[in-house]
């Protein structure tokens, strides 16, 4: 059993003078990526291709509101039942004339009002009461990212959602002293449910086409630690025997360190395991995570046993460091196995990244516990590239370790773990693409 906490501080044994690493995706199953020819794998991406010196960059309101291009990663979600592309942009949530679209119940005219009116009446009376500010504060902490975004928009109008949002925001703005008051939790639950019905919960959609790329490259994880603690997470294939994930999916400091075993299920679709599963006991992470629990270094890899899934290769994601301009110019997809859905259904959504820091990406893409290790990917020149490894949730924005030069170097090195070595096999040198798998 080989488990190492190695890799130079804080990322990998990053050398100096290496060219930028952009690794193209590998389709697997003997085919090529189902898109057009990609760029020269040795070509630089972005103004300088290296983010390590770049300033913090934040998407403007115009950036967030801009519609997605036809060639963006959003295309992977088009056609999935329930996906509404309009809700993936900020402009859709602000809506025409400031009206907040009612999520409602999908009922017909007249029936919607009859259904929603009691919810609205109860919620409004509670929020307008003396304890309204305290309840509004509690409710806000439990709302989905989508609901919070909608509430933060200026609006007018007299639809059910607009009225509720107006009353809610007014309650939040009232005296801060009363916001700390103890509240009846059942009243909080009632308001949360009313808002979820009227405004809507989240933008995620479930994909069941998990035998197709890129979905088959995403793996459900069942993680067991030496203390007996068990967790759900997500990973994604970066090589034939390499599944990238969050560092805390392979190493938890208070749970005996390295995971005892991880079951990896690529393309898991509920109870269906189209490619079977494999149990891994070999992992890698960074010293920054293992020794110092640095969030920016919170990533690692699961090394699969040989012939883990049998059959032809499944393929893998591409990855690489991209400039802020590229990252903020288009929607990114986040897809994985959230804990609020049965194990293990694949759910995803897409939104623009709102902030690109030196080693972190921050976004309002909805996620739930269980999605640690998800790929955050974009399309560039018609190919999919992972630009972040999702690892944290927060009310201010969920976040990923950004794929920077040192991160890409580690991923590249790990992607060839377990690969056969022979004179005819291309080496995983900096800038060299992953060999296509026949």
């Amino acid at each position: 059993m080989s488990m190492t906490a190695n890799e130079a501080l804080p990322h990998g044994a990053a050398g100096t003078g290496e060219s930028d690493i952009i690794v193209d995706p590998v389709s697997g199953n003997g085919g090529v990526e189902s898109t057009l020819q990609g760029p020269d794998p040795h070509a630089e991406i972005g103004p300088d291709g290296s983010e390590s010196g770049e300033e913090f960059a934040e998407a403007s309101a115009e950036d967030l509101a801009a519609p997605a291009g036809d060639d963006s990663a959003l295309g992977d979600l088009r056609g999935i039942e329930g996906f509404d592309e309009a809700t993936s942009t900020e402009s859709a949530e602000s809506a025409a004339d400031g009206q907040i679209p009612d999520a409602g119940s999908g009922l017909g005219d007249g029936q919607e009002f009859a259904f929603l009116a009691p919810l609205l009446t109860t919620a409004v009376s509670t929020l307008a009461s003396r304890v309204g500010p305290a309840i509004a504060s509690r409710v806000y902490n439990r709302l989905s990212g989508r609901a919070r975004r909608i509430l933060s928009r200026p609006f007018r109008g007299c639809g059910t959602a607009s009225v509720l949002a107006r009353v809610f925001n007014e309650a939040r703005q009232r005296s801060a002293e009363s916001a700390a008051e103890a509240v009846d939790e059942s009243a909080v639950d009632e308001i949360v449910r009313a808002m979820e019905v009227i405004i809507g919960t989240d933008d995620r959609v479930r994909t069941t086409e998990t035998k197709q790329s890129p979905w088959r490259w995403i793996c459900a994880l069942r993680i067991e630690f030496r203390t007996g603690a068990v967790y759900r997470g997500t990973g994604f294939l970066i090589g034939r025997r390499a599944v990238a994930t969050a560092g805390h999916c392979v190493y938890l400091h208070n749970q005996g360190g390295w995971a005892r075993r991880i079951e990896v299920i690529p393309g898991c679709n509920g109870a269906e395991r189209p490619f079977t599963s494999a149990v891994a006991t070999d992992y890698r992470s960074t010293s920054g995570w293992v020794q110092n629990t640095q969030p920016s270094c919170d990533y690692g890899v699961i090394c699969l046993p040989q012939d883990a899934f049998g059959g032809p290769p499944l393929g893998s994601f591409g990855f690489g460091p991209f400039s802020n301009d590229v990252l903020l110019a288009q929607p990114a997809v986040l897809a994985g196995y959230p804990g609020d859905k049965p194990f293990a259904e694949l759910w995803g959504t897409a939104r623009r990244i709102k902030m690109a820091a030196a080693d972190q990406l921050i976004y309002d893409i909805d996620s739930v516990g269980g999605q640690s290790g998800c790929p955050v990917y974009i399309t560039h020149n018609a190919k999919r590239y992972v630009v972040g490894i999702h690892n944290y949730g927060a009310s201010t924005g969920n976040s990923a370790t950004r794929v920077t030069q040192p991160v890409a170097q580690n991923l590249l090195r790990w992607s060839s773990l377990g690969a056969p070595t022979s004179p005819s096999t291309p080496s995983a040198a900096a800038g060299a693409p992953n060999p296509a798998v026949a």
Partner: protein
Amino acid sequence: MDGKICGHVVDTTERVVAEATVFIVASPDIAPDIAALSDATGHFVCDGLGPGVYRLRALGSTGEFGETDATVPAAGTTAIVIRLGSISPS
């Protein structure tokens, strides 16, 4: 972030529930987006947390769920019980 929330998931009859998924729905700061699974004794652990008030939800295998709050001290552990079919403060 060395704080932990540990505890048990039970049903409305106070029997322990195994294989319930437990995850954070509200946190004071960033929290690892990993979900815990309750073991055969209903026990679970959420690790790597900063101090503050968290809201946890447990989801049973047949869709029933429960929520409760937990206050994590700095570098400490707090114990809770999550009852499926109920939503309550700790």
